[in-house]
């Protein structure tokens, strides 16, 4: 059942359209990420849910109740900010209890709830510390506890990890996901970090220039991108220009080299120019027998990237990257040699512009 719904939501700032015709239904307990580059409208959409921006058009509802024009203080939506936004004049416990005090809850209930939240974020010993006495990771955990303490209908997280260093980011994102699942709270997470979105989310909304490019599970977004932008933004991608040869069989050519694709090409005609995309890890050397997509490739360069070895190959006149897992016994071809490489039909994506 839909918990949070955005229907035809748009936001204009003068002549500039920040968000255009945004539609999304979020189920209760679902973790949805808005993923996209700076200026794509993801934060504006989040701020409209929080009530800090009012949509120019469209309706936002929680549990079927229209909250589009409600004040932020009336929405019961918790928000975690990129810059933590902890109140510097209050201790950790006072910060967490702030929303409950505003709601005039009983002092004993506030104390219990604050203790409960401190236990969840593992900061019981920091209850009496001030924000300036905490590390970035600790501050963000307190901000999370403060947002959760009021038992919000929806938890909004605006790039909460981007100010933290890489190691803490990874551990804290696992903590955020675990707390969200434990409490069963609906969460909307804004990020420009694809790894964060892929690892945290039940669903991802890929956004570009104020519009939704694609909505899907991390698996769908990564493996079956539907647009060039979506494919390029999430993961590494080889892009090439192709030409449809046989729409019925999904056959096309790239620089005269024949490829078969599992993408439905029936809506296209023979000779149509298309964008072809293949992820580097979908290529392999043609040691196994495949019926399709076995092509000659010239080895141009080999780069070690730690766990992965990236091999630059040339098929026809087009350069592709091919990734293979590193291991101490890996046999690599010689640079300059020509090898047969292959990929499955499903790996050959034909995308909309």
């Amino acid at each position: 059942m839909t918990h949070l719904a955005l229907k035809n939501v748009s936001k204009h700032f003068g002549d500039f359209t920040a968000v255009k015709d945004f539609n999304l239904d979020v189920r209760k307990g679902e973790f949805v990420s808005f993923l996209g580059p700076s200026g794509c409208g993801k934060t504006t959409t989040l701020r409209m849910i929080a009530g800090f921006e009012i949509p120019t058009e469209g309706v936002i509802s929680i549990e079927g109740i229209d909250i589009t024009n409600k004040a932020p203080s009336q929405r019961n939506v918790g928000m975690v900010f990129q810059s933590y936004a902890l109140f510097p004049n209050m201790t950790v416990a006072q910060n967490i209890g702030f929303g409950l005090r505003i709601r005039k809850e009983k002092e004993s209930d506030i104390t219990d709830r604050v203790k409960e939240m401190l236990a969840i974020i593992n900061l019981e010993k920091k209850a009496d510390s001030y924000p300036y006495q905490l590390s970035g990771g600790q501050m963000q955990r307190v901000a999370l506890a403060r947002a959760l303490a009021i038992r919000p209908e929806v938890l909004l997280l605006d790039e909460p990890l981007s100010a933290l260093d890489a190691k803490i980011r990874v551990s804290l994102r696992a903590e955020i996901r675990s707390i969200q699942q434990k409490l069963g709270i609906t969460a909307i997470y804004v990020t420009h970090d694809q790894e964060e979105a892929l690892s945290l989310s039940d669903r991802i909304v890929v956004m570009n220039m104020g519009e939704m490019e694609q909505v899907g599970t991390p698996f769908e977004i990564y493996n079956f991108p539907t647009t060039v932008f979506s494919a390029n933004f999430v993961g590494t991608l080889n892009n090439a220009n192709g030409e449809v040869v046989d729409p019925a069989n999904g056959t096309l050519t790239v620089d005269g080299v024949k490829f078969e694709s599992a993408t439905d090409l029936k809506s296209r005609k023979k000779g149509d120019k298309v964008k072809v995309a293949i992820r580097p890890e979908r290529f392999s050397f043609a040691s196994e027998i495949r019926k399709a997509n076995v092509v000659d490739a010239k080895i141009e360069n080999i780069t070690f990237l730690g766990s992965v070895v990236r091999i630059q190959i040339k098929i026809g006149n087009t350069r592709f990257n091919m990734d293979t897992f590193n291991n101490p016994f890996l046999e690599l071809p010689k640079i300059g040699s020509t090898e047969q490489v292959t990929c499955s039909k499903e790996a050959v994506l034909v995308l909309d512009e």
Partner: protein
Amino acid sequence: MAQTALNPKSSSPGSDWKKWLGVTPFFLFAILFLVLPSLRLVMGSFTNDEGRFTFANVLQLFQQQSILDAYWLSIRISAATAIGGGIFGFLLAYSVTVGGLPKPLRSALITFSGVASNFAGVPLAFAFIATLGRTGFVTALIKNLFGVNLYTQTEFDLYSFWGLSLTYMYFQFPLMVLIMAPALDGLKREWREAAENLGASTAQYWFRVAFPVLLPSILGSMILLFGNAFGAYATAYALTGGRLGIITIQIGAQIRGDVLHNPGLGYAMAMGMVVIMAISLMGYSWLQKRSERWLR
């Protein structure tokens, strides 16, 4: 070991004296115009007319009612103008920072404040006499337009406690604007949004978050305003001609010696001022550190 060799400049003995070259004029200035006069002040406080050591000057500070009254009057005027100028200056700074007034107005006010906070002494006194004195322009205008004589029909008197306070306000509130504008800029938008998000109204945000965060800055600035007014001499002397016996005028009378002449007592009174100013500045420094910790 290799790390120590990475920064050979810092360990070069030849460059050590060069580092101090830039601050030499400051130290010279401080020694000549701060340290030596202070020493002279302390020594003078404990010296009698015959050049012998004495506690009499310092003891007189607590024994002579006129001196205690002078200190009290200075404290009252300084406190009144610090509080008045502080509140007025804060409201002005609020209007042009978070109050949402047009940005050009902010630039204009900050520029005005920079000039006005340094506009004191005889020119300021003359400006007020020319506008609000017995025959001042504004006094005459009010009389002509409304038929009200400020000096005979109201309690107003430019040469009184409140008249002097009003004059001091001219340089007090701009100083408050200059100090408070950056502090108000330091209030993060996210604090307001976080408070709203947690259910707080605008009043609750100001009462529970913004005002407590700003309080050390406000109090610290008011202490600075207090010190600013406490040390003022020329404005008060030019405006009242000694009618109001504030401490700086009393010190001037003792040292200049037209009627009173006891330089030793004058030095002791000045030392008392230094003590009060030092306490004020320590308070300011403590509060400033506290607000910096919160607003960083």
